């Protein structure tokens, strides 16, 4: 299996925040923590586009590189996860992440920053798959139930795609080819880097620019 990836089709995202709601509901994410959010570019202007953003489960994750306690790990499916029992809540990952994925609940004493929380690609954490301990810390483990992330599966316009990188890239590429545009704002290259900038080699969608 290829690596698990998300890609958001900016031509389709209608900023309904359904993905955000699905994520919060599925994992009982506390107030103040948004594992996923919708970012709108050129809000209110012609050409406005929205993109649903969360942890992109980078192949060369900067959060993993800067963590002083090495609490991050990558599963065989390419999902970047972390161990909350090891995390010290220093926030270095937050500064390193270009997507603003790491979140910190401010519910400790004197507003102390809590342990980092982020999108798990609905793959839980190091605790036993589907256990209560895993749910308490990381939320549901849908991958272990044979399902894909809740945000992608319930997206009403199917703008947010999630799953095996090869399958997801094929679906997105097909769309771009059919409509002749749509990878300019947030394409595979923007999300995961182009080959020239050190990103993984990916087939570039051939489409007419809008």
């Amino acid at each position, binding site marked *: 299996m290829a690596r698990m990836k998300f890609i958001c089709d900016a031509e389709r995202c209608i900023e309904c925040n359904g993905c955000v709601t699905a994520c919060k509901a599925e994992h009982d994410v506390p107030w103040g923590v948004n594992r996923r959010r919708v970012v709108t570019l050129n809000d209110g202007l012609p050409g406005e586009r929205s993109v649903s953003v969360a942890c992109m489960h980078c192949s060369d994750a900067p959060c993993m590189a800067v963590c002083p306690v090495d609490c991050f790990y990558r599963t065989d499916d390419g999902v970047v996860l972390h161990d909350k029992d090891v995390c010290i809540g220093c926030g270095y990952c937050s500064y390193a992440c270009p997507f603003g994925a790491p979140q910190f609940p401010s519910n400790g004493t004197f507003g102390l920053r809590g342990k980092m929380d982020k999108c798990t690609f609905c793959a839980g954490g190091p*605790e036993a798959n*589907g256990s209560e301990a895993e749910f308490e810390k990381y939320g549901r483990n849908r991958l272990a139930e*044979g399902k894909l992330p809740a945000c992608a599966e319930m997206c009403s316009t199917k703008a947010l795609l999630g799953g095996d990188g090869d399958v997801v890239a094929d679906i997105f590429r097909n769309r771009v080819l059919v409509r002749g545009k749509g990878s300019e704002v947030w394409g595979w290259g923007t999300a995961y880097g182009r080959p020239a900038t050190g990103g993984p080699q990916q087939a570039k969608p051939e489409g007419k620019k809008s």
Partner: protein
Amino acid sequence: MMSKCTTACVLCGAVLALSACGEKTEGAAKKSDVPAYQGSTGPSAFVANGWKAGDQAAWEQQLRHRAQAQNEYTRTPTQP
């Protein structure tokens, strides 16, 4: 009277000083994660049909099949 007070203070200090000895050491060792294809220990009602826990190939096939639900072109009669 003075000596009793001093003894009490010393005892209190000793109790406070030794209280940290009872703290559990936090294990910083990272736990290994069980692969998702091994299945979930949670309620079976939440587990999707069409694959068997422990069968990696079946799990991968299940996810590929599920990912195609995001592809509306597979639902239309003619492929573009």
